[in-house]
């Protein structure tokens, strides 16, 4: 229930929300958990495996129990109620395990941002604030990230003072001071969830979640911060840990520090009559604060026979019964806590009525990020917990995260860490620490488990319903490693990742095996520290921005003229241009006919283009290409193939000689960047003495392929100054000319076998050129599908479609492109390897289905027999390209077939949809094998 006053909530405003169909109210500053506790709700969830009622166990992101489903304003599954800031109109319900994902698209924006700093401080509790202040005071660029809506950390849940003012006030003033500095960024509601190599940390900032439906649409709801820090200070605090005893999962059982936080920070009393079960001093402060706030504290049950004297005295002064050397043997109640059984040993004892049982088994430094950094952890016997050891990264823990559990200790440790992190920036006063009262220090040996005969209700992992009995089953089955026990029992694998249960699991396993926690170790901490939504991780990298779309200078025309597009790498290339009523087949047959019988044009701008310049350019290309390039005359063009050293085809394209020392190389669309990298690799690492420079000019030029028997006529009309006859402008030469009034380089090359010209202008002028060509009214635009059909009819392979990295030029029937004269080129030596001269290598052939209307699916396998033998069926190869041909009046395909060049005329079979389709092997050149058409 809510206290009359107090807490860091805004009582002047009331927020309405619904939980499991009931209306409740709360205030700004509440979490869903604090508002539900204020509303008297004890059961928040039902456990996943055993169906047991569960309540609020903690006051932070370590919560294992109170996991809810948000339904409105937008569905989100499995959020700890202790981390959900309350807002007006929130609708939530309790969960029994799994939640539900939204079925509708999330309308919110999510984004990401890169940030750099000298010092990243994680956590804005007393240590973190002191560290940030010290580092910033020394002039460092600082980022301070904290997961809470306001800074202060543990100070928000206690009445402790710093520098003579209440801790929360000191925290607010310190944060305000930091925010006033130019190179300091304070990130609230920001959880650093991953720590990677080279001090790269990733955080998620929840920017508008707390506004509910009132969140402005243009502000990213969550933001992922990618932070590169020179130094990191981890002031991540500590998690209180539970003790395993019977019924320790009942609603009403709560971590002692959490109860204290509910009282101080939220003005909420989490119960009316409490018992405190502790193994250390810190829970005494909780007991006294709760008593002060009006909770009847029936007893403090301290496992130690000699509790701290001053704390004990203060408890007695307050009239609280102190049962030293006692334990809670059971928590009892029907659906929620109603009594606590207390005894001097593990079983039975005296029953005390209570609706609240505060538990403190000690404190675990939050070492998750330190461990993720590659840091080692050390079990500290005195503290009974894991503390940071060494890390190879520039990171240091500060305060409770490093095992310092007093407020003045945290302030001093934080200030020192901040000053150290600022390094050379640090001035003489940087490490001056804020001051706070020194508490009494009492020995607090680790205490994990109340001994019992029956361990079936001693819960270790509340979220996974794992009990001490389950762990004993695992160790009884012979498991000895805590990692194996984790996987066998699922302890620590729920979405809280065992924040409160991990070390307890290790302790219970160690106890069962008769060893120590130090000896046994613990499970590995991995990112993310907290569950992070996929929406946040995806950020803006979705929809149209998921991957770049590359377009040519002609793209707008293609779109305006109804082209459908094909993705080629990141490029959008026009696939075909359907006219009204046309399907793809009709459109492509029409485009093919236009190219073979009249004139057609394609946007070929996506081909890679590289200027290769220098006195040794010819020698360089001779080494890279299988054929001779240095003999190419200025003004001429040559087709070439590049291989890898293993002799397999890497890429192909044309080489144009622009001047003695200047070649222009084209590559396939998808390989442009790779080929340039390839050239640079050889030049820089193997042949630095070659005087050659390579420069990408892919997008400098827009390229239009003008194809077909009437292409000469169209070009002549557009370029009156150009002599276009076959004699004046022979095949495989290039000319400079004005085309449509635009300075252009025209090449007479053909990827279709037809008379064809490739016209290159700067990409600024690409659209002008294309429009002029289309304005002749004679030219049919065609896309990549038609280009593929035309080239396949001629048996021209596409690298990457008809080859797959296991194909030599010889396999493609292109021995003519492999020089026998050159002493060496990349790949040459491999052509004399036994493997590359095998007779049964897969070779490129043509295939004609016996049914001329049957289109073989690409990828179809080929076999030699009309019926399939018992497996394993000997495969002869597969179909790499398959089309309908207007020119052939039938379907055809290209295929890689074992010994294919020797099988011309043979009948093979293609298993398609349960039947064997007969096909005849032919030469891979199916159209105009004499090359009669290239001159028009």
């Amino acid at each position, binding site marked *: 229930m809510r206290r009359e006053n107090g807490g860091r909530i805004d009582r002047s405003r009331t927020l309405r929300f619904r939980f499991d169909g009931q209306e409740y109210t709360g205030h700004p500053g509440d979490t869903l958990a604090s508002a539900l506790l204020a509303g008297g709700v004890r059961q928040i969830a039902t456990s996943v495996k055993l169906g047991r009622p569960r309540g609020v166990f903690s006051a932070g992101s370590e919560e294992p129990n109170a996991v809810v489903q948000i339904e409105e304003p937008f569905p989100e599954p499995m959020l700890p109620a202790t981390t959900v800031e309350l807002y007006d109109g929130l609708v939530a319900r309790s969960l029994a395990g799994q939640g539900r994902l939204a079925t509708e698209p999330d309308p919110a*924006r999510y*984004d*990401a*941002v*890169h*940030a*750099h700093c000298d010092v990243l401080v994680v956590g804005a509790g007393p240590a973190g604030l002191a560290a940030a202040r010290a580092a910033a005071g020394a002039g460092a*660029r600082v980022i301070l990230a904290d997961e809470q809506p306001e800074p202060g950390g543990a100070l928000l849940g206690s009445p402790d003072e710093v520098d003579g003012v209440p801790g929360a006030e000191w925290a607010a003033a310190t944060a305000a001071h930091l925010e006033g500095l130019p*190179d300091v960024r304070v990130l609230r509601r920001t959880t650093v969830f991953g720590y990677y190599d080279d001090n790269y940390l990733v955080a998620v900032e929840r920017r508008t979640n707390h506004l509910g439906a009132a969140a402005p649409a*243009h*502000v*990213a709801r969550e933001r992922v911060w*990618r932070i*590169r820090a020179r130094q990191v200070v981890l002031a991540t605090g500590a998690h209180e840990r539970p003790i395993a005893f019977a019924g320790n999962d009942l609603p009403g059982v709560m971590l002692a520090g959490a109860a204290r936080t509910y009282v101080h920070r939220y003005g909420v009393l989490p119960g009316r009559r409490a018992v405190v079960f502790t193994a250390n001093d810190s829970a005494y402060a909780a007991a006294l604060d709760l008593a002060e706030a009006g909770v009847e504290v029936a007893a403090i049950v301290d496992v130690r026979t000699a509790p701290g004297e001053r704390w004990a005295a203060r408890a007695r002064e307050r009239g609280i019964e102190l049962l030293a050397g006692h334990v809670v043997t059971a928590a009892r109640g029907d659906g929620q806590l109603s009594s606590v059984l207390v005894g001097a040993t593990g079983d039975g004892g005296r029953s005390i009525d209570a609706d609240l049982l505060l538990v403190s088994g000690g404190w675990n430094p939050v070492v998750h990020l330190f461990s993720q950094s590659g840091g080692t952890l050390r079990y500290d016997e005195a503290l009974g917990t894991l503390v940071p050891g060494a890390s190879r990264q520039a990171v240091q823990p500060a305060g409770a995260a490093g095992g310092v559990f007093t407020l003045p200790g945290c302030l001093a440790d934080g200030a020192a860490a901040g000053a150290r992190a600022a390094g050379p920036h640090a001035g003489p006063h940087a490490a001056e620490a804020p001051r706070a009262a020194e508490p009494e220090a009492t020995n607090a040996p680790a205490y994990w488990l109340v001994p019992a005969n029956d361990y079936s209700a001693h819960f270790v992992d509340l979220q996974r319903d794992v009990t001490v009995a389950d762990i004993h089953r695992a160790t009884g089955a012979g498991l000895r490693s805590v990692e194996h026990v984790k996987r066998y029992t699922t302890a620590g694998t729920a979405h809280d990742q065992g924040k409160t249960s991990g070390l307890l699991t290790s302790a219970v396993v160690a106890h069962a095996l008769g060893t120590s926690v130090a000896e046994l170790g613990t499970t590995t901490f991995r990112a993310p520290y907290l569950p992070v939504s996929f929406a946040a991780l995806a950020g*803006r*990298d979705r929809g*149209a*921005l998921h*991957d*770049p*779309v*590359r*377009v*040519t*200078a002609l*793209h*707008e025309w293609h779109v305006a003229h109804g082209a459908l597009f094909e993705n080629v790498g990141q*490029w959008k290339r026009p696939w075909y241009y359907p006219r009204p009523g046309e399907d793809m087949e009709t459109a492509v047959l029409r485009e093919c006919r236009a190219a073979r019988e009249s004139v057609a044009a394609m946007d070929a701008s*996506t081909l890679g283009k590289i*200027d290769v*310049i*220098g*006195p040794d350019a010819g020698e360089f290309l001779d080494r890279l290409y299988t054929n001779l390039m240095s003999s190419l005359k200025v003004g001429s063009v040559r087709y070439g193939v590049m291989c890898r050293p293993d002799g397999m085809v890497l890429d192909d394209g044309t080489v144009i000689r622009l001047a003695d020392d200047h070649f222009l190389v084209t590559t396939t669309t998808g390989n442009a960047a790779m080929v340039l990298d390839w050239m640079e690799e050889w030049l820089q690492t193997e042949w630095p003495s070659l*005087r050659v*420079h390579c*420069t*990408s*000019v*892919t*997008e*400098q*030029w827009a390229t239009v392929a003008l194809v077909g028997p009437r292409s000469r006529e169209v070009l002549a009309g557009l370029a009156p100054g150009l002599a276009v006859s076959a004699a004046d402008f022979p095949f495989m030469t290039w000319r400079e000319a004005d085309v*449509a*009034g635009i300075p252009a380089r025209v090449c007479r090359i053909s990827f279709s076998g037809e008379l064809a010209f490739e016209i290159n202008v*700067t*990409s*600024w*002028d*690409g*659209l*002008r050129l294309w*429009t*002029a060509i289309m304005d002749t009214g004679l030219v049919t635009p065609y896309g990549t599908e038609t280009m593929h059909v035309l080239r396949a009819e001629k048996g021209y392979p596409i690298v990457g479609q008809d080859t797959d990295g296991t194909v030599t030029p010889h396999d493609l029937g292109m021995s003519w492109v492999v020089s026998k004269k050159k002493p060496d080129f990349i790949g040459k030596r491999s052509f004399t390897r036994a493997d590359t001269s095998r007779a049964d290598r897969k070779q490129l052939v043509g295939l004609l289905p016996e049914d001329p209307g049957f289109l073989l699916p690409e990828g179809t396998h080929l076999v030699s027999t009309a019926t399939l033998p018992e497996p394993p069926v000997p495969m002869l190869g597969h179909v790499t390209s398959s089309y309908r041909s207007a020119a052939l009046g039938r379907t055809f395909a290209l295929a890689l077939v074992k010994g294919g060049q020797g099988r011309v005329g043979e009948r093979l079979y293609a298993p398609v949809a349960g039947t064997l389709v007969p096909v005849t092997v032919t030469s891979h050149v199916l159209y105009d094998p004499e090359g009669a058409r290239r001159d028009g």
Partner: protein
Amino acid sequence: MAERRSPAAAHADRFEAASRGEGLRLAELPFLTHVNVRVDPASPAAGDIADVLGAPLPEEPCTAVTAASDITVAWLGPDEWLVVAPEGYQPELLRKALGERHGSVVDVSAQRTTLLVAGPHARDLLAHGCALDLHPSVFGPGRCAQTTLARAQVVLLPRQDGFLVLVRSSFAAYMAEWLLDAATEYVT
């Protein structure tokens, strides 16, 4: 006859709309001259090219020099520079300066386009997609970088009021869309 067209021409209106507030100025600076120069920096040819440019070819990696004639020479590699000059500048001048000596001068004006990202939020905007530290103490005028912005390779040139983002022409529409989307919070 249609006019020549720059790669981000279709985004001009939206850039303008996004620039109406105080926070940001986005624009394409179309048709600037870009020349890729490769030459041994220790060679006399490098000196002759520098003379024509009116600025030395900077030898310190990731720096740029701006000459009085509004020509910027950006370091791309130990023997490679990008000259960014006003529209109409003749790359031929540099080719002549190089002469027959070993090196290369390639007109790449249409290979990339130049986007201006300026205003008080320019750095915030780029930080959404650029992993480099763009703090003025690290990356101010006189620096340059080849890096990635979002998922595209770019050349970044910081200026007093913001940055020039040189992006490959085929990526210009993507980059424009990305910038406009990233600007949502800064222009509303």
